[in-house]
């Protein structure tokens, strides 16, 4: 319009329209909740992305067989009404009747069999294999009874089935595949996706015929999610009224927003743990970190409490374990390294580095935290060449074992089990920088045992060795700030999942 008639009045009209029309969309009256995501989502199909945004959409569009109440951590049936272990590697489910997918397809045992068989097949290339590769195949007993066969004993099965494993419609998925599902997702969940414009926005609408699920019924009629990478832009839109809810807001900005009275700022801890990974196995060549004293010195050099108090703030906590405290098996009775720079210097001197040394330091996110951490290391004599890389680039060189020390974080996919982080990194995989045989043995026992006590005992042994040897320097847990307009009612949960179904207008 502007290009055709560039007169002053049409320009004015356009400005007025933009100024008036936009905020009017986003409020209680219109029933649309406007939300911002910071990162782009590669594919809405939850099995083919590995990002937090993907988890959020997965919980809205699809359902799992089981649901874990985020408050009580109790498992209840969702698409299944009951389940039992037939033997150590077989789970039998009774399915809920009368559930339909968004496209009208009824949900039954065929959908479960198809979904499990598809995702468990490695050739289909599910992005995070760990989420699905413990399942072997599914077997239909009758229309509403199904058995899932496991490859081997896997005690965390229920947790995974209530998390990343959701049920897809067999007929539609066979036809559309992951890319079709990504553009036009179909599930049984509380919200149905009505529009996907990759890189721009997603529009969700309440599923009017949602079954009687423990997730509850959707209250907000329409949700428009836009991708806005810059946090300053997000805040500007929040002020102007074209956004109702933003999340993952850095602590400094959240504090400022909390001082204005138009917004609710809620802070919740997440399962993400921030730690320093050191090349204890010496994969990157002759590095000082092969010396236990040096690794302990690094642990002593860092003022965890100050990092949490000044930078992370909110619900973040200091951790000494290489796992999140609420995770099953994450015992807290381990070697703790308090902040003691003098002791760190002594240890470095004892290890043969009285004047410290220089090392390449890598990080991929939270530049500010990474800078603060290097500053602590510099203070005890460990000079750092700072390298900030993209996650995928750092992961690649880390897998090749070329990283002497790096600032890493891991969110465990919100799986409340220590295996999701400890076993991910200490079982001699390509990301294992410690390569401790004893730890591997204990973890093998802990991961495959069905007896909770045996599991805890073996995790405890592994964690004690890991902290005693100071393979990592675990530092803190993360938190997320949710900022939303006062007319939105929402209580965030501790697992970093934005639940639209729990939101309503005041």
């Amino acid at each position, binding site marked *: 319009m502007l290009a055709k008639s560039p007169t002053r009045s049409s320009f004015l009209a356009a400005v007025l329209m933009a100024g008036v029309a936009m905020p009017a969309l986003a409020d209680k009256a219109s029933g649309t909740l406007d939300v911002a995501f910071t990162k782009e989502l590669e594919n809405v199909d939850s099995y083919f992305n590995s990002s937090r945004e993907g988890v959020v959409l997965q919980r809205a569009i699809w359902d799992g067989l089981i649901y874990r109440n985020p408050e009580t951590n109790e498992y209840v049936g969702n698409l299944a009404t009951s389940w039992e272990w037939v033997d150590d590697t077989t789970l039998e489910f009774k399915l809920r009747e009368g559930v339909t997918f968004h496209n009208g397809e009824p949900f039954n045992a065929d959908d479960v069999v198809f979904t499990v068989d598809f995702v468990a097949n490695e050739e289909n290339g599910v992005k995070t294999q760990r989420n699905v590769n413990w399942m072997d195949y599914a077997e239909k007993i009758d229309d509403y009874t199904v058995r899932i066969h496991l490859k081997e004993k896997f005690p965390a099965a229920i947790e995974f089935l209530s998390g990343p494993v959701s049920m897809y419609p067999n007929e539609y998925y066979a036809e559309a595949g992951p890319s079709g599902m990504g553009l036009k997702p179909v599930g049984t969940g509380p919200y149905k996706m009505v529009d996907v414009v990759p890189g721009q926005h997603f529009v969700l609408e309440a599923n009017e015929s949602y079954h009687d699920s423990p997730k509850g019924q959707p209250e907000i009629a329409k949700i428009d999610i836009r991708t806005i990478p810059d946090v*300053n832009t997000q805040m500007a839109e929040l002020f102007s009224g074209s956004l109702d809810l933003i999340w993952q807001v850095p602590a400094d900005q959240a504090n400022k927003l909390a001082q204005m009275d138009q917004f609710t700022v809620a802070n919740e801890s997440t399962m993400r743990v921030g730690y320093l990974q050191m090349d204890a196995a010496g994969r990157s060549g002759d590095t000082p970190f092969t010396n236990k004293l040096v690794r302990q010195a690094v642990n002593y050099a860092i003022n965890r409490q100050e990092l949490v108090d000044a930078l992370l703030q909110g619900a973040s906590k200091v951790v000494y374990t290489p796992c999140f405290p609420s995770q099953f098996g994450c015992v807290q009775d381990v070697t703790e390294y308090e902040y003691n720079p003098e002791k760190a210097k002594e240890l470095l001197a004892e290890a043969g580095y009285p004047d410290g040394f220089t090392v390449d330091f890598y990080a991929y996110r939270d530049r500010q935290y990474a800078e603060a951490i290097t500053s602590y290391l510099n203070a005890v004599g460990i000079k750092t060449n700072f390298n900030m890389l993209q996650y995928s680039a750092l992961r690649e060189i880390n897998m090749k074992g070329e990283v002497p020390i790096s600032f890493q974080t891991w969110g465990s996919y919100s799986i409340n089990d220590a295996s999701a982080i400890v076993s991910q990194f200490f079982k001699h995989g390509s990301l294992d920088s410690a390569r401790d045989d004893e730890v591997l043995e204990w973890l093998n026992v802990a991961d495959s045992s069905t007896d909770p006590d045996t599991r805890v005992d073996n995790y405890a042994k592994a964690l004690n060795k890991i902290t005693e040897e100071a393979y990592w320097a675990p530092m803190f847990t993360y938190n997320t700030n949710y900022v939303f307009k006062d007319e939105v009612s929402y209580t965030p949960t501790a697992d970093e999942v934005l639940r639209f179904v729990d939101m309503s207008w005041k």
Partner: protein
Amino acid sequence: MSDVTDPLAREIEGPSPRQMLKSRAASHKGLIFGMSVVAFLVLVALLAPVLAPHDPYAQSLMKRMVPPVFMGGTWEHPLGTDHLGRDYLSRLIYGARVSLMIGAIAALISGVIGTAMGVAAGYFGGKVDAVVTFLINVRLAMPVVLVALAVVAILGGSLTVVICVLGLLLWDRFAVVMRASTLQISRRDYIAAAQVIGASTPRILLSEIMPNVFNNLIVIVTLEMAHAILLEAALSFLGLGVQPPTPSWGLMVSEGKNMMLFEPWLVLIPGVVLFVLVLAINLMGDGLRDVTAPEGRS
């Protein structure tokens, strides 16, 4: 005719060229302003350890983002502190070192490369000229920022890498201008005379040609210095230039960017200083050109 009191000789007496230069310089406001700002910043950079009130690397997480004095802060930190509680004034002062060092060394490296190529092309002509012209064209076809980004991304950002990359990229203007001016001068009679009396080529280049292209060289040096400083700031802003904790103005702008909405001074202070420095260097360059070659003034 040997009488010095000859009326003709007396008539051409007056201010010497050097005196004329001085008086032109003294009345050129841009030059005076530019030179004094640059001289001031060079002094600040040299005396950084004496002038900086705090250690620019000393982190104090409990005193983060203290506002500057004029926004309600205290004289303890006249320009406030940054996102890690480091004194902003001290970082600004040490940052001047980084900016000026990168500007000066990058301009020096590219100046040496560009001048050597340009003078050689202009003086020898023929095949040498063809090769140099080709190289200049190749260089001009490459977008500086893109190449610098790519190289720094591959080699990893550090002070040395940034200086080398910029030094090796910014010689094109030197080569073009030096080639053109040498071409003009090498046809003058005094060059022919020098050749006839048997002066060696290096002697001709150094004592006949160089002094006569020097004015042009100075102007290009200032232009490229400002260019290099801005590029360094851009690279550091994108996280590919000077790496923390080294203070660099571009990096400071980048680090303050996230808090721009609430603490705009974090971006404003280094931004303004950077602007003033680049403006001053450019004014100085323009002024030098006006003063040394007034006929070229447009």
